[in-house]
């Protein structure tokens, strides 16, 4: 066991400062500081507020992770850090910190892709990922379907959202329904007490969209449809059945996500579907994916909710995979790349 690499991961791409430590695929520590409360009144993440919070949280979060794992920086074999995609100023705090730790502790540093890390985190819960696999990544900033041939080197984007991300749709609809930010958890809860009785649109699922957008998503029409429906009710002076709206909206999102993910598995002859990103915490998405996949012999892997949202453990998990695969580390002039493409797993 102890000859497996001990890898530390740093995540600062959005509003969570995360430091995780893994040995091989065993999670040893997952320390997190969030600035989410500071952004709540703005209804979305304010980049400069997030960056300031990362600077303040970096050292204490690192200390908590080291204490939790019972290791020191000298014990670590490599340091991985999210170098993109994400908010430029926020990423830069983590990247500069990672390099500071790497230079001081004389360790290699790996700049890694945040989205690939959302896939890699599943190895901490379910062991090595069978390759090829299909990954569905759904968060506040992204909604993508990927073909994962080789998590250390090759990820092929199959499709992504052409407008809002799935989590963004949850956040916007939640605001419309007077729920707090982030909107995913309150919608998930409200939907449990509601019925999916309203037929909201399923973006890019029509026959005419199959040629150009078979594996792409669109959620902005759905968000608008929910807004119109709620407005019409309010104008008519009728009460808005919040729980039913939440359930119907959630069903529309999960229906499209799971149908396209399974379609991608079948087209590529892949029997493993891994779901990651904050929206993977959604209870309906998990249940529907399981139900539909089971029917066609596909195995669904979804990490536990705490590992689905942004954290340092996912970065450490990808770093550990890269070290084990013999991938070379990044150079010390490693930049933060807010638009890092999915085809780059590390730089």
């Amino acid at each position, binding site marked *: 066991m102890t000859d497996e690499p001990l890898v530390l991961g740093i995540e600062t791409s959005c509003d969570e400062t995360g430091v995780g430590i893994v040995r091989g695929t065993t999670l040893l520590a997952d320390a997190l500081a969030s600035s989410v409360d500071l952004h709540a009144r703005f209804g*979305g993440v304010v980049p400069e507020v997030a960056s300031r919070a990362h600077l303040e949280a970096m050292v204490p979060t690192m200390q908590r992770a080291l204490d939790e794992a019972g290791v020191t920086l000298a014990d670590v074999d490599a340091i991985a850090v999210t170098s993109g995609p994400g908010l430029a100023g926020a990423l830069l*705090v983590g990247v500069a910190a990672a390099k500071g730790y790497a230079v001081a502790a004389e360790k290699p540093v790996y700049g890694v892709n945040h989205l690939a890390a959302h896939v890699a985190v599943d190895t901490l819960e379910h062991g090595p990922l069978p390759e090829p696999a299909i990954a569905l990544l759904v968060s506040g900033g992204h909604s993508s379907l990927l073909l994962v041939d080789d998590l250390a080197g090759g990820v092929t984007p199959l499709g992504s959202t052409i407008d809002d991300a799935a989590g963004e749709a949850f*956040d916007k609809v939640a605001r419309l329904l007077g729920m707090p930010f982030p909107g995913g958890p309150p919608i998930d809860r409200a939907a449990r007490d509601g019925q999916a009785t309203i037929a909201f649109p399923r973006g890019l699922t029509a026959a005419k969209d199959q040629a150009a957008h078979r594996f792409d998503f669109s959620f902005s029409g759905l968000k608008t449809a929910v807004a119109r429906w709620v407005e019409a009710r309010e104008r008519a002076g009728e009460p808005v059945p919040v729980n039913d709206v939440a359930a119907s909206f959630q069903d529309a999102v999960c229906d499209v996500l799971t149908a396209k993910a399974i379609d991608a598995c079948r087209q590529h002859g892949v029997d493993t579907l891994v779901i990651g990103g904050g929206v993977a915490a959604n209870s309906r998405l998990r249940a529907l994916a399981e139900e539909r996949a089971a029917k066609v012999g596909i195995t669904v892997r979804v990490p536990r909710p705490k590992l689905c949202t942004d954290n340092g453990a996912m970065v450490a998990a990808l770093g550990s995979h890269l070290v084990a695969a013999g991938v070379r580390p990044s150079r010390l002039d490693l930049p933060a790349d807010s638009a890092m493409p999915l085809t780059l797993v590390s730089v």
Partner: protein
Amino acid sequence: MLVLVLDTSTPAVTAAVADVTPTGHAVVAELRAVDGRAHGELMAPEIDEVLRKAGASVRDLRAIVAGTGPGPFTGLRVGLVTAASMGQALGIPAHGVCSLDAIGGVPGQVTLVATDARRREVYWALYDQAGARVEGPHVDLPEAAVERAAGATVAVGDGAMKYADRLGLEVRDEPRYPRVDAFVRLAAERVRAGAPSEPLTPLYLRRPDAVAAGGHKPVLR
């Protein structure tokens, strides 16, 4: 005692190794690249190289001295988080020094020190004839800075140079950026005393542009 000096409060990305002795201090090696948009890329390789130039290893360092600004936020944070993370990893104290103090006053003159704050403003402070800071740091339009900097007879710093024609003061070319020697001098007592690490709080001086929701894209990416 070897110390590492880091400052990213201006377009000059500075890394240096200095020796603090019981009675004095000397700069052993110093590197400075000027690029206001690449602090994140330049900082770590510069540290690596300046240690090599000084013939030292990170393990020889006994303290870190960092410029706390004021300076443009994104770049400023690079130096501070690097200093804090290195201090933590090495188990050595990190000390902060106001970066304008490391430009400092012209001896014998009341000096306005001003650096470029972008958005047509300057970060500034006023120093008396003995070199003590008597006003600031603040952020203002150049004209407002001069008006508030009562008694200044000379101005220095890249902000003073940029707005030289609007200050109505003699502007000198040097020092243009914070000086390593001054950082070491200003932190030397703390280094010698083995003072504990301080939180390296950036002198932002401006509130974040908080783009409130409503009409804007709520999740800014």
